[in-house]
């Protein structure tokens, strides 16, 4: 743990991970999202759920890559987790370092502010995808049934896959979290903010010697 996380993230990104063309990446993701929109008839609530699920499946696998390349051990606390996700994980996979803010007083929740987002570089959402449910600033609940209430009004959280990735990856290190977008520049907000809330530490699954 000698190196500061920021330096570690930069080192890993520079020396240990494969790079791909950013435009290929952005266009691939864009076509996936638009295909989902077509498949679900522009029911953005469903698209959001699907993106979150896809991200979850990616996260449960990417965590091994993250641990193997970064050679990091277990985080001391959730605040440490926040810094690691922002400065090492996002740096390593997307070459961005979102800012950690709004850490809850009990350190069980934090926000990540994304100044840049390679997924959304060329994206302008259509009017219908920007419409928000009245009186709700929070993103739709990620699991299926809870969102049946207001399907038509849900906006498209274009980068929802990232919430899923964070959720999946942290679950594999026994941290059950809720991750969702609170705001997105694509929807006309000032900034893009992802809120990550610790639900519980999955004590039963913590491997021996790690508890």
């Amino acid at each position, binding site marked *: 743990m000698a190196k500061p996380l920021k330096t570690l993230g930069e080192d890993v990104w520079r020396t240990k991970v494969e790079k791909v063309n950013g435009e290929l990446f952005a266009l691939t993701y864009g076509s996936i999202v638009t295909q989902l929109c077509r498949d679900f008839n522009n029911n953005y609530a469903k698209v959001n759920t699907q993106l979150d699920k896809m991200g979850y499946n990616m996260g*449960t*696998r*990417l*965590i*091994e*890559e993250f*641990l*193997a*390349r970064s*050679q990091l*051990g*277990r985080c001391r606390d959730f605040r440490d987790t926040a810094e690691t996700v922002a400065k090492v994980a996002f740096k390593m996979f997307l070459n961005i370092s979102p800012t950690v803010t709004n850490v809850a007083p009990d350190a069980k929740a934090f926000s990540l502010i994304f100044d840049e987002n390679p997924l959304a570089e060329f994206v302008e959402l259509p009017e219908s995808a920007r419409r928000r449910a009245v009186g709700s600033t929070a993103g739709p609940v990620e699991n299926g049934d809870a969102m049946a209430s207001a399907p038509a009004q849900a906006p498209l959280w274009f980068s929802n896959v990232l919430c899923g990735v964070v959720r999946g990856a942290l679950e*594999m*290190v026994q941290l059950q979290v809720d991750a969702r977008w609170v705001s997105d520049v694509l929807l006309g907000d000032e900034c893009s903010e992802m809120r990550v809330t610790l639900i519980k530490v999955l004590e039963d*699954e*913590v*491997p*021996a*010697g*790690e508890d």
Partner: protein
Amino acid sequence: MILGVWIINKAGGLVFQRDFTTGSNVVPALAKLSTNDYLVLAGTFHGIHAITSRISPMARSTGIEVLETDTFTATCHQTPTGIKIVLFTDPNQANNEALMRRVYDLYADYVMKNPFYTPEMPVRCELFDVHLFKLVQTVNPAATQA
């Protein structure tokens, strides 16, 4: 010389096991066991690992990391996700930690990134086998898969 590699899943199930010969008469290969014996041994190791971390006089012990005998050494690395990689080498092999890291890298690449691999299930990924064998060959040039 690398003699063998095991991968044990979270639940203590052996999901991968390979032995390698060294091509040298000085360092013989590990004894060949039946599939069932490997499963039992891996399960036992999983249990012993848990016990060693519990009986530690200091909190936060990682559990067993190295098991040394006069004929072989077993190095165990447990990831924060709960997977254990066990590397069997001859007692004179140096830098086991670095080798272990390489095996974990290969696992992350060719097992976890294979979309058709189901986590926690036995590893049947040819690319992983191929690259693991290449790694083994850098240590024992005359290696064959036992």
